[in-house]
């Protein structure tokens, strides 16, 4: 028997691509049903009009994550209460690519979109980490000289390295810590400007995530987590 916990654990690795947060933490999963090796999951989003492309990516990733759980041979993901529920559920059910599910309405697949937002998420995560490490004195103020081997060990840093690896960037101990959107080292002359922009990306993602949590709460009558988390 497959345990619901195992399914949820697998789903916790699925991110909202725009918000760079786990769909289980965001409260998007409303139900998991297990019957033998068959797993069915229901998904909900903050609004009826959330962008269909991001919704598709989440549903697609959720299905892949469930299928990767040992013992699962069949997975079903159903998106509820969404303007494109029908096309998305049919597409995911039939293992179609986005461009097949929305035939005639796209120019290509969702890879570019996915990678664009992974890079934005990475940029903001790197800046957050950099600030923490500078503030607590664990790295030298001469940022460009810092190598990955100079970083202390922590769960945040492990996660950072995981995201960096996912993007195909150099994660060897001698690689420079701070890199740009393409994984290249940042020259000292432009590092302050790049950090300033990375901070802005972070503010944008953070505000967006806060709004989405609030909208989900308003939509489904849940307590608003943001009202306590803003202090």
């Amino acid at each position, binding site marked *: 028997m497959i345990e619901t916990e195992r399914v949820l654990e697998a789903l916790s690795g699925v991110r909202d691509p725009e918000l760079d947060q786990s769909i289980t933490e965001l409260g998007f999963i409303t139900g998991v049903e297990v019957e033998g090796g068959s797993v069915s999951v229901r998904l909900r989003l903050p609004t009826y*009009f959330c*962008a269909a492309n991001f919704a598709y990516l989440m549903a697609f990733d959720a299905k892949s994550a469930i299928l990767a759980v040992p013992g699962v041979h069949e997975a079903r993901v159903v998106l509820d209460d969404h*303007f494109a529920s029908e096309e998305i559920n049919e597409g995911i059910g039939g293992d179609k690519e986005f461009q097949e599910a929305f035939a005639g*309405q796209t120019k290509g697949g969702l890879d570019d979109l996915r990678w664009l937002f992974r890079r934005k998420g990475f940029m903001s995560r790197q800046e957050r980490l950099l600030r923490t490490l500078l503030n607590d004195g664990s790295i030298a103020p001469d940022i460009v000289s810092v190598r990955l081997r100079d970083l202390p060990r922590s769960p945040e840093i492990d996660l950072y390295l995981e995201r960096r690896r996912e993007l195909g960037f150099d994660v060897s101990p001698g690689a420079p810590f701070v890199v740009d959107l393409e994984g290249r080292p940042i020259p000292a002359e*432009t590092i302050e*400007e790049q950090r300033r922009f990375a901070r802005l990306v972070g503010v944008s993602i953070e*505000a967006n995530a806060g709004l989405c949590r609030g909208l989900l709460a*308003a*939509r489904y009558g849940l307590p608003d987590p943001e009202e306590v988390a803003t202090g």
Partner: protein
Amino acid sequence: MYEKDGEKYFVVDGHMHLWDASPENQKNKYGKGFIDCFYAYHSNLSPKEYVWPYEKYCKYTEDDLMKDLFEEGYVDVAIFLPTYLMDFYKKGFNTTEQDAVLKEKYPDKFVLNSAWDPRDGEKGLEVFEAKVEKWGIKGVKLYTAEWKGDSRGYSLTDPMAYRYLEKSQELGVTNIHVHKGPTIWPMDRDSFDVHDVDHIATDFPDLTFIVEHVGLPRLEDFCWIATQEGNVWGGLAVALPFIHTRPRYFAKMIGELLYWIGADKITFASDYALWHPKWLIEKFVDFQIPEDMQSEYGQLTPDIKRKILGLNLADLYGLPVPAEVPRPKVVEVGVAEEAGATA
């Protein structure tokens, strides 16, 4: 006019509506989905005492609007930004024709803007020109996510959009309010992306592009573009209501906006009836960047607030400002010239 602690503020609300989303006017499930989505924004971000019952939110009256904006809400001039949504609502959500009724009754209280859609083709150009002549229109609202038949939206760089922009310029309709939404063609692109504004802002330097919601959820793309293009402004709808339940997020957003684009291109907007202008204005005038963030973001001064609340839009639309409202001469400096990062 709003007055607090001896400071006077002339208030121009840069984005508001008189809509009808009642079940009788809804054409299909999308019409219901649209207003339900608005209601979630309204009820989640408003102080509890300002949350309306759902039925009233679907359709409110002229009297509600006049009272909320001008009697209680301190607004001096309000700018209508019509949003047609003819595929969702039988008579439209909020059209120029409907807004014109109030404009004719209270000519000094409202700026009547119109809208166009490149997918209306050649015929639409004529219809647009007739509206401009009839009402002396100075601005339009463009909603790129609007559905039209099988289409789920358009890009401002579409060739026909250029025809409409040329026509706008020719007719002296110089204020182009751009509103991004969740859908677009092609659907594999980020529908909220504002990079098309970058292209048209370069190609039409005599037009001013006011990006609604300061580009949210793509604040970063908006700031980047508005830093490069002098004729790209930002409207604070959606961002400003964060001031109540999420004041630290608001501090960061306004701090970033002031850093990147400066105080001269940011404009107040309630998006009424999404939010009531009274509490937005009161809280904004009382607001200060929290102390622990001031080393990064500085402070908000009454002059900055005065520009954002009304003076910027008064300049853009040529509205008379009462003499008792101070006109700050010093331009609050953004640091746009230092910004060289790439998005």
